[in-house]
């Protein structure tokens, strides 16, 4: 995707959350550059502080937690077109508890924490935009917490595949099983029995 097309996607995404003035948008649009990464590239490692905000234009990524027993727990997936990166580390500028990696070949726009901060200092309306984006992320995180605690394996499976059916064809199913907190055998059993 050309830079101009990616920026247009970014604009659509941003304005659906919170409209910016022409001046604010032009300044925001100018801080991004294009990037890409191959499959299974670690973009942020545990212990590093997230300096980058991504806007994904292609591919699937995930953040995962690595337990003391070297078991991976997938916390979140990201896909086009949305922001990505380790959100809490980026916003708090504290070390990340998670690894952030690509699960397929990925393309994105990226910008730095300091550039975002400059715009926050400059425009109160831009600060409102970031606050709204953060609020929706929080809303999503709490809804997922409810799903994890109250849904059956089958309900979790159906919910994920109704929301993002394309992932089944794009990434190894072990990551989906890990995200839902069910084992791989249960996942493949659900795949062969549940009609979505």
């Amino acid at each position, binding site marked *: 995707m050309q830079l101009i097309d990616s920026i247009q996607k970014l604009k659509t995404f941003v304005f659906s959350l919170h409209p910016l003035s022409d001046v604010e948008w032009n300044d925001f649009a100018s801080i991004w550059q294009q990037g890409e990464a191959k499959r299974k590239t670690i973009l942020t490692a545990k212990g590093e502080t997230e300096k980058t905000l991504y806007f994904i234009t292609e591919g699937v990524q995930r953040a995962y937690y690595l337990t003391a027993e070297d078991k991976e727990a997938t916390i979140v997936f990201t896909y086009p077109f949305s922001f990505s990166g380790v959100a809490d580390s980026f916003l708090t500028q504290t070390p990340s508890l998670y690894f952030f990696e690509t699960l397929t070949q990925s393309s994105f726009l990226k910008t730095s924490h300091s550039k975002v901060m400059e715009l926050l200092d400059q425009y109160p309306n831009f600060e409102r935009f970031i606050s709204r984006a953060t609020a929706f992320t929080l809303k999503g995180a709490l809804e997922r917490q409810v799903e994890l605690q109250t849904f059956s394996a089958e309900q979790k499976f159906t919910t994920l595949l109704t929301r993002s059916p394309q992932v*089944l064809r794009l990434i*190894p199913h072990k990551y989906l099983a890990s995200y839902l907190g069910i084992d791989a055998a249960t996942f*493949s059993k659900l795949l062969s029995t549940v009609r979505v």
Partner: protein
Amino acid sequence: MTSYNRDTLIENLLDQTEIILKKAIEWQLIPHSTFALRPTSESWSANECLQHLNSYGRFYLPAIESVLSRSEKTESSTQFSPGWLGNYFTKLMMTPADGIVSKKMNSPKDHAPKTIIESPMVISEFIDQQEKLLALLSTAKKVDLNKVKVGISIAPFIKLKLGDVFSFVIAHQVRHVLQAQRALVNTGVVEEKLKVISLMSLD
């Protein structure tokens, strides 16, 4: 004999592994009853093709990982020259550009699939191996592909250059993934053809 630029060779092998992995990811959606279906009583099902590759992966991937962890990291020696035996193995495994394997080969008994294993388990192990292979190939960008040696499965005392081992392991995979693809086409499940990238395209 031809020599290859190390990074070009590894990028090419990464690309081939990526194509194989993408295919395996799509295969996750095929039901076991179909994936384990033999096109004829004599020929392997897609399931058996992957079981066969898994059994090689179980040998070669840990062997490669272990030599890589012990090898010196170097920025130099950016050329790789295949050894005569290694090159012979690679050529033997390699699939022609049209994707039709003409010479039929018998696989060693030890690596022939013996029992029916549930397809999701077989595909999942195969996918794990491809992800591992991608990581090993990336690590190998920092070593001398001529000096690092790996023992081969049929005779561990015969050691081949790492560059040769990667080349024939991946050529072998392409061969049997194509065979699996053909099995699925012949049983009527899949129609598209797997795109083959030949090692020859490096020249």
